[in-house]
């Protein structure tokens, strides 16, 4: 087995260890693992930056938004990009949707972005990006549950 295949195999095991539902629901790994961006950035289609409102001011956070780990702060960060609150996660042609997950304390833990196929894409911490069928596939112990859905019109619709 080559090095590349071995890495991929390990990563799939890692993903399924952390998110057991994935192993039954079907998913695919769509990027190499990297610490260069997180799920919050990935949902915003940014693969160069780690987005986080950390108090030490080490990471990027939109300067117009307060640096707080609150759902309100995360919603505002996406609103700057043109997203607005939305009622459901169903796929709607011409719109791009983002889901924000929170833990039991209401603190944001994760964000996923909807793809044209209606499936979702997530960056799992410092691991890979994955494409998963439903938002519930990665909810649970690590990411908690879905708090809000946001949407914005796609740019490439004429």
């Amino acid at each position, binding site marked *: 087995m080559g090095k590349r295949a071995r890495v991929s195999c390990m990563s799939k095991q*890692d993903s399924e260890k*952390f*998110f057991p539902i994935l192993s039954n629901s079907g998913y695919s790994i769509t990027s190499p693992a*990297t*610490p*260069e*961006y*997180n*799920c*919050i*950035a990935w949902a915003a289609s940014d693969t*160069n*930056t*780690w*987005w*986080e409102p*950390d*108090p*030490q*001011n*080490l*990471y*990027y*956070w939109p300067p117009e938004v307060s640096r707080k*780990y609150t759902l309100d702060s995360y919603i505002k960060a996406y609103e700057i990009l043109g997203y607005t609150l939305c009622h459901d996660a169903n796929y709607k042609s011409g719109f791009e949707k983002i889901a924000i997950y929170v833990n039991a304390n209401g603190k944001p*833990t*994760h964000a996923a972005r909807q793809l044209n196929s209606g499936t979702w894409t997530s*960056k*799992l*911490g*410092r*691991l890979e990006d994955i494409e998963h069928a439903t938002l519930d596939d990665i909810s649970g112990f*690590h990411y908690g549950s879905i708090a809000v859905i946001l949407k914005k019109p796609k740019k490439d619709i004429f």
Partner: protein
Amino acid sequence: MKYENLYFERPEDDIDILDFNNTGVSNESSVIYRDYKSSIEHYLLPISRQLENPVIRFLTLKAQWEVETAVLSSATEIAMHPAYQQIIGMGHVAIPLILSEMKRKQGHWFWALKSITGEDPVLLKQRGRIKEMTEAWIRWGKEQGYLV
């Protein structure tokens, strides 16, 4: 010998680790001899004694931290992990180990470095850009003599 060369790199000209006159000793021999010495340490020293070695302690804590925080998307939560906090607790001895690790592989060591050193060489416009942040810290490490 600097810690950074102990495990992460194998400089071929590092023959002076031999305990005897190394005249005529090949690089291959020095590598074999070094592995022999580390094997002895591995098998004869109890784990509690091995952890007294800062390199082994750092690598042990790093491995635990990496596995247990792999899916977290908050660097603050990543830095709050007990193993990461113990690395910070190692103080200045951890700096060359962290910087060598950063040279080898990008990672979220910024919190630890800032906490230990009280410094932050990362420019405001570089915040969140992990590659640029890493380069800034490696440059700082070289300027401060932690890295060659």
